């Protein structure tokens, strides 16, 4: 066995089989350099075995933190106030359907009006004139009524009579 092989076995001494352990022992007996390395490493292993255990500063606080981190009391509230993915997708789909329906209805209405008469702008204008005309007619009627009241006699049966 050469020193390189012996060095490997020194660092793996705990994992060796009987045959390897015997070979190492024999080499160390003959090689002062490897014997020194072996003694030094055994000394360190002894120290490693004595490395002090560490534990949490406050074990019960750590346990509480772990439990709180997993079972948050406000977890359900958070979930209920903020809509989930499926809810948000559903709302988006409904909105999209409504927008499309409105768009289609609007287009259909314009198409019908275009096919039967003047443009929507003219129709609106005409409609405006029509309303104004109606208002004028009503105004005339009220004025005519006021004029008529001058010569109006109130009958006993509360019926208005125009002269």
């Amino acid at each position: 066995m050469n020193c390189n092989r012996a060095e490997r076995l020194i660092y793996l001494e705990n994992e060796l089989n009987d045959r390897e352990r015997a070979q190492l022992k024999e080499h160390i007996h003959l090689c002062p350099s490897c014997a020194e390395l072996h003694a030094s490493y055994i000394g360190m292993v002894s120290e490693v075995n004595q490395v002090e255990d560490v534990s949490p500063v406050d074990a019960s606080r750590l346990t509480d933190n772990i439990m709180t981190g997993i079972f948050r009391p406000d977890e359900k509230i958070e979930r209920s106030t903020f809509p989930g993915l499926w809810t948000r997708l559903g709302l988006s789909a409904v909105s999209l359907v409504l927008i499309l329906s409105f768009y289609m209805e609007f287009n259909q209405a314009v198409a019908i009006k275009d096919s039967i008469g003047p443009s929507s702008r003219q129709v609106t204008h005409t409609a405006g004139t029509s309303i104004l005309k109606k208002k004028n007619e009503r105004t005339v009627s009220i004025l005519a009524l006021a004029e008529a009241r001058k010569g109006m006699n109130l009958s006993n049966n509360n019926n208005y009579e125009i002269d």
Partner: protein
Amino acid sequence: MHEKPDKQLVQESLAGNQASFRLIVERTQDMVYRVAFRFLKDLHVAEDATQEVYLRLWKNLHKYRDGAKLTTWMYTITTRHCLDILKSQKFRSRLETTEQTGNLSEELDQVELHNNILKAADALTPKQKAVFVLRDLEGLSVKETSRILKMREGNVKSNLYYARKRIHEQVRKDYKVNTQK
């Protein structure tokens, strides 16, 4: 009083019994924290890592197999999480900053020697550090270590060799530097 077996506690936890999960935490948290601290060398980072380990345990509790040893599973989750942290750039830069501010002029008593051993372990690769922590500090067998790290036993031994050699060489170097003062 007879302790409830791990399997029963897991089943009760899965059924929503928080008290049973708390028992699992109380039973294993010292080990989880100790391993996390061995890897991360910082009380607060180790505590945060411990909390994260239990969050991962809770999320994966349904994967627990009958007959499996809960502590082995905990070692696995803890080691993997710590390796993730060790590999993160943020942690590496933090470690370098800490090393730069270390006091090199302290006396080499036994506590200091232990600190030097652990400090030397910080310079190892994540795999080397993992096998050193599990095999040499936690005292697990090579077989258990290979199972936890999902590594062949030959690979575990190879990493152990390099880990022990590097730590030993560093400690010998520190010792010579100190004895020359």
